C-alpha cells in the first residue's frame, strides 16, 4: 500500500496549502473584500479537501466539509447572505476542517461531536433562507425549468453505430412516471481541468438504472468563435429505476460537485417538470470515446452542417501535462470520420464495470489529484530537497565568480583583438546573472507561509482568554531564506501567545483605561539593511517591570544588589526559566516560551529585542539574518580590506573634505548633516585596521540604523555598487562584532558585510559599560 501512502502524503501536503489559502482568502473577506473570486477560491479549496478525503475514506472530514461546502454554495449563489456572522462561522469552520485534516493525518480520532454545532448551524443557515432540502445537498425543485425532451438511448443495444455517429437518431419521448429521474448536468471548465470525465459519471449513473443521455448543444458557437478550452456541452440524463433515490444520484456527482451545475428532478412528481421537445443533435458517449477528451466530445457533438468545416480542424494541444493525453498522442487530430469509427455499439453497463471514483489507487484519480493541486491554485510546483537547491546555489555562486574573473582578465588589447570573445563573455555575464537571480528566488520564500498560520492562533487565544484581539499583518511578502522561515514558526507562535496572554488586557480593563475594547497584535516583516525585522507589537499593558524584577530576584536570575535599567528588565523575559504569568494558564506561562524564542532565534544567527511602554504596549523585534538572500551593497575599502555596506541602509555618501565634523565634549566626533548631529564611526579605527590611513579623500557613508537613528561611517574609499550573496561567517567560524557576514567578490576574495545596527549597538553597549 505504499502507493496509497504516497498519495496520502501528497494529499496532506495539498491540504496544508489549501488551508493556508483558506486563511488568506478569509483574511481578505474579513477585511471586506467579499467578491465572487474569493468565494470561489474558498469553495475550491474546501472542495478539493473534501474530494481527497472522500478518496481516502476520512468520513468525518468529508461529512463536515460537505456541510460546509453546501453552505458556501448557498452563499455563492446568494441564497445565504455573507454576513459578518457567516464569515465568523466560516472561519471557525476552517479551523475545524484543519483539525479534521490533522486528525486524519495523525490517525487520532476527534470527539464524535466535534464540529457538530457548526454543522448544525450550517444547516440552520441553509434552511433559514427558505430552502427546501432537508439534506445538506438538497436543491429546490423549482430552481430550474426543464425545456427538453428526454431521449431514449439504449446503451445496451446500439446496433446502428454508423447511423448514430453521423446523424441524430430517433428518440421516443419518454412518459413521465415514478422512478424516473431527470438529471441536468452542466459541467464547468474546471471539471475538465481537474481531469474529470463526464463519461465516467455516466457509467456510474448507468449502473444505477436504465439511462438515456442527451447532449445539449444550444450554446455551441460557430466554429470561428470556437474556443478550444471552453465548455459548450451540457447533458440531460433520464434515469429509471424503481428504487432510485436522489441521494444515490447525487453521490455519483459528489466528486465533481462545485465544478458543475447539477439538478435532479423526479419526473412525475412535479407537474411542471414535463419536458418539452427541443431539437438537438445527440451524442452517444461510450467506452471507446471515454478516453477522448473534451474537445473530441465537443467535436463529435457538433451539428452536421459544421462537420465539414471540422474535418481539418486539429484540436490545439491541451495546455496540460501530456501524461493524461494519451489518446491525443496517438491521434493528434482526429477527424470526424475517425471519431465516428471509434463509436461502436457497446453495452456499457454490462461490459464496463463502473469506475468507482472512490478508489484512489486507480490511475485516474491520481492524475486528478495532481491536476487539482496544479491547476486550481494556478501555480505549478514541485517539491525539491533543500540540499539539492543549496548545491545549485553554491555552484552558481562559483560560476558567477569565475565569470567575473574571466571578464577581468580581458584587457584593452584583448578586447580589440577578440571581439567575438568579448561578446560571448557579455552574454555569459548576463546569463549567469539571470541564473543567479533565479536560483536565489528558489531559496527565498515570502514570510506569508508562516504569517498565515497566526490568525488562527490569535482567534484561539482570544476565545480561550475571553479577550478581544485583532491581528494585523504587514509585509507578508517579504522574502526570507527558506531555512530561516522554517525556524520562524515556533518563536513567532510564542511571541504572539505572549502578547495575547500577558500583553492584551481583558475588554473591561481596556475600556476602563480608555482603550478600544479590541486589542491589536501587529505582526510585521520588513527588510532592514542586511536583516529581516519581524516585529510583534501589541497595544496591551506593557511589561510589569516591578513584577518582572521581583520574580527575577526571587528566582535568582538577578542578584539582589543589582539594579538593572528598564531596558534590561524588559530583556529578562527571555531569561531561561522565567515566567511572569500571575496564574499559569495553558496558553503561556510555563516559563519556557520566551526562552525558546531566544534560543531558536540565536540558532539562526538572529537576535531578539523587546521594548515596552507601561500601559501602552510591548514591541518585540526579531532581527534575522538574510543568510542566502541577495543583497544590494556598496563596496568600500577600509584600510586595504574590502567591506560592503547594505545599500538599503545607506542614506547618502559625502566626501570627508566636504563634511562638517564637530567635536562633542567627550572628544567623539559628530557629523552635522542638515542640522542633525550624527554619531561618527571611523571603521578603520573601529576595526583596528593596521596602516591607519588618514589621507584626506576619505568618505562618509551616512547610514540609517533601526528606528531611523543615523550613524556616519568613515571609510577609506568607495568602489562601487553591486549585488552580493551573503555567506555566513558562523558556518565555519563565529559571530564577529560589527560584521553581519561575508560575501565573495568577483575576484574570489572575501568582503565583509558591515552590520550597521550591530555597530551602533556595540557603541551603546560600550558607553553603558
Amino acid at each position, binding site marked *: 500500500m505504499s502507493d496509497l501512502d504516497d498519495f496520502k502524503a501528497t494529499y496532506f501536503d495539498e491540504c496544508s496549502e489549501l488551508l493556508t489559502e483558506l486563511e488568506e482568502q478569509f483574511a481578505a473577506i474579513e477585511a471586506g473584500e467579499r467578491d465572487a473570486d474569493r468565494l470561489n477560491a474558498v469553495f475550491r479549496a474546501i472542495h478539493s479537501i473534501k474530494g481527497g478525503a472522500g478518496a481516502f475514506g476520512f468520513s468525518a472530514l468529508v461529512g463536515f466539509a460537505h456541510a460546509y461546502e453546501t453552505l458556501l454554495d448557498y452563499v455563492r449563489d446568494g441564497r445565504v447572505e455573507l454576513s459578518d456572522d457567516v464569515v465568523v462561522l466560516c472561519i471557525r469552520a476552517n479551523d475545524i476542517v484543519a483539525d479534521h485534516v490533522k486528525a486524519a493525518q495523525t490517525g487520532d480520532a476527534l470527539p464524535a461531536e466535534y464540529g457538530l454545532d457548526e454543522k448544525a448551524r450550517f444547516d440552520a443557515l441553509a434552511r433559514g433562507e427558505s430552502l427546501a432540502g432537508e439534506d445538506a445537498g438538497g436543491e429546490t425543485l423549482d430552481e430550474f425549468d426543464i425545456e427538453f425532451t428526454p431521449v431514449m438511448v439504449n446503451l445496451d443495444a446500439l446496433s446502428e453505430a454508423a447511423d448514430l455517429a453521423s446523424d441524430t437518431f430517433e428518440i421516443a419521448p419518454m412518459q413521465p412516471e415514478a422512478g424516473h429521474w431527470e438529471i441536468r448536468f452542466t459541467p464547468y471548465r474546471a471539471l475538465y481541468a481537474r481531469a474529470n470525465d463526464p463519461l465516467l459519471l455516466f457509467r456510474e449513473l448507468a449502473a444505477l438504472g436504465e439511462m438515456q443521455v442527451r447532449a445539449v448543444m444550444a450554446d455551441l458557437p460557430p466554429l470561428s468563435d470556437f474556443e478550444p478550452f471552453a465548455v459548450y456541452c451540457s447533458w440531460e440524463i433520464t434515469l429509471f429505476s424503481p428504487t432510485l433515490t436522489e441521494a444515490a444520484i447525487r453521490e455519483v456527482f459528489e466528486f465533481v460537485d462545485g465544478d458543475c451545475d447539477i439538478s435532479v428532478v423526479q419526473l412525475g412528481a412535479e407537474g411542471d417538470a414535463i419536458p418539452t421537445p427541443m431539437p438537438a443533435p445527440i451524442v452517444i458517449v461510450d467506452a471507446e470515446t471515454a478516453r477522448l477528451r473534451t474537445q473530441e466530445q465537443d467535436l463529435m457533438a457538433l451539428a452536421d452542417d459544421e462537420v465539414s468545416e471540422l474535418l481539418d480542424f486539429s484540436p490545439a494541444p491541451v495546455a496540460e501535462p501530456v501524461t493524461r493525453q494519451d489518446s491525443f498522442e496517438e491521434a493528434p487530430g482526429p477527424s470526424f470520420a475517425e471519431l465516428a469509427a471509434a463509436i461502436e455499439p457497446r453495452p456499457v453497463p454490462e461490459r464496463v464495470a463502473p469506475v468507482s471514483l472512490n478508489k484512489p489507487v486507480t490511475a485516474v484519480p491520481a492524475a486528478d489529484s495532481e491536476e487539482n493541486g496544479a491547476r486550481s491554485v494556478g501555480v505549478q510546483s514541485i517539491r525539491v530537497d533543500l540540499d539539492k537547491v543549496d548545491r545549485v546555489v553554491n555552484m552558481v555562486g562559483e560560476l558567477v565568480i569565475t565569470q567575473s574573473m574571466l571578464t577581468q582578465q580581458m584587457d584593452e588589447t584583448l578586447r580589440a583583438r577578440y571581439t567575438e570573445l568579448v561578446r560571448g563573455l557579455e552574454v555569459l555575464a548576463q546569463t549567469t546573472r539571470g541564473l543567479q537571480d533565479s536560483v536565489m528566488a528558489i531559496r527565498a520564500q515570502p514570510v506569508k507561509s508562516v504569517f498565515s498560520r497566526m490568525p488562527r492562533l490569535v482567534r484561539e487565544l482570544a476565545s480561550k482568554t475571553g479577550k478581544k484581539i485583532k491581528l494585523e499583518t504587514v509585509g507578508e511578502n517579504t522574502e526570507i531564506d527558506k531555512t530561516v522561515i522554517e525556524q520562524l514558526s515556533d518563536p513567532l507562535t510564542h511571541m504572539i501567545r505572549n502578547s495575547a496572554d500577558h500583553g492584551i488586557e481583558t475588554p473591561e480593563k481596556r475600556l476602563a483605561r480608555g482603550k478600544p475594547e479590541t486589542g491589536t497584535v501587529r505582526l510585521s516583516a520588513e527588510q532592514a539593511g542586511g536583516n529581516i525585522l519581524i516585529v510583534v507589537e501589541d497595544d496591551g499593558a506593557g511589561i510589569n517591570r516591578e513584577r518582572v524584577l521581583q520574580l527575577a530576584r526571587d528566582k535568582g536570575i538577578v542578584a539582589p544588589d543589582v539594579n538593572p535599567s528598564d531596558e534590561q528588565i524588559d530583556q529578562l523575559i527571555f531569561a531561561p526559566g522565567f515566567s511572569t504569568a500571575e496564574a499559569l494558564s495553558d496558553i503561556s506561562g510555563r516559563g519556557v516560551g520566551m526562552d525558546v524564542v531566544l534560543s531558536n532565534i540565536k540558532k539562526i544567527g538572529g537576535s531578539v529585542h523587546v521594548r515596552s511602554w507601561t500601559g501602552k504596549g510591548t514591541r518585540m523585534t526579531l532581527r534575522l539574518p538574510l543568510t542566502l538572500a541577495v543583497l544590494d551593497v556598496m563596496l568600500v575599502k577600509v584600510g586595504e580590506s574590502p567591506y560592503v555596506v547594505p545599500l538599503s541602509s545607506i542614506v547618502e555618501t559625502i566626501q570627508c573634505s566636504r563634511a562638517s565634523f564637530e567635536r562633542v565634549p567627550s572628544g567623539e566626533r559628530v557629523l552635522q548633516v542638515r542640522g542633525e548631529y550624527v554619531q561618527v564611526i571611523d571603521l578603520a579605527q573601529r576595526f583596528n585596521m593596521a596602516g591607519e590611513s588618514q589621507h584626506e579623500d576619505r568618505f562618509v557613508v551616512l547610514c540609517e540604523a533601526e528606528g531611523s537613528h543615523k550613524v556616519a561611517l568613515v571609510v577609506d574609499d568607495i568602489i562601487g555598487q553591486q549585488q552580493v550573496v551573503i555567506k555566513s561567517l558562523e558556518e*565555519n567560524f563565529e559571530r564577529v562584532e560589527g560584521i553581519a557576514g561575508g560575501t565573495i567578490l568577483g575576484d574570489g576574495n572575501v568582503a565583509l558585510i558591515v552590520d550597521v545596527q550591530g555597530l551602533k549597538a556595540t557603541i551603546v553597549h560600550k558607553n553603558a559599560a
Partner: protein
Amino acid sequence: MEALGLRDDMGDKSAIAAQNSLQLIAFSIGDQTYGVEITTVREIRAWNGATPLPNTREFVRGVINLRGTIVPIFDLRARFGDGQTSPTKNHVVVVMSVGDKWVGILVDAVSDILTVSRDDIHNVPEGNSIDTELLNGIVTHESRMVGLIDLHAVVSGAKVDA
C-alpha cells in the same frame, strides 16, 4: 634495493597498522614539525591572502573563499605565541574539518605523510601551558619530534574579549 627494503618495512608494519597506527600530515613551522591526523585534512592550498577579520586575535589571519564558503585561517605560528607569520606564495594553508566546521591553518610548509603507532604517542610534558593546551601528544618519527595539534584548542578563543 633500498626501495624494496622500504616496502618490506611497510609490509611488516601493515598488520599492526590496521589496528594501531595513525597517519599524520606533517607540516613545519620554522624548525618544528607538527602533525594532524590525515583524515581531518580536507585540502592543502598555497597561501593567497585572506581578508582580515576585525576584533579578532592576531592568530586569526582572516577569511578565505573556499569554493563558495567562507573559511577562517589561523596562523599557527602566532597561535603558539611566536608572532605573526609573514606569508609568501610558498606558505601553505591546510584546510581541515574540526567538528562540523572547516578551518584553515597557515603553516610554513607541508613536509610529509607519516605513519606512527598510537603506542608511540607520548604525553606532552607539563610546563609550558601553550604546549599542553595546544598539543594532544608528542610522537617521535625518525628522531624528529612531531607535536600532535589539538585542533579544537587551536581554533578556540579567537575573539578579542571572549
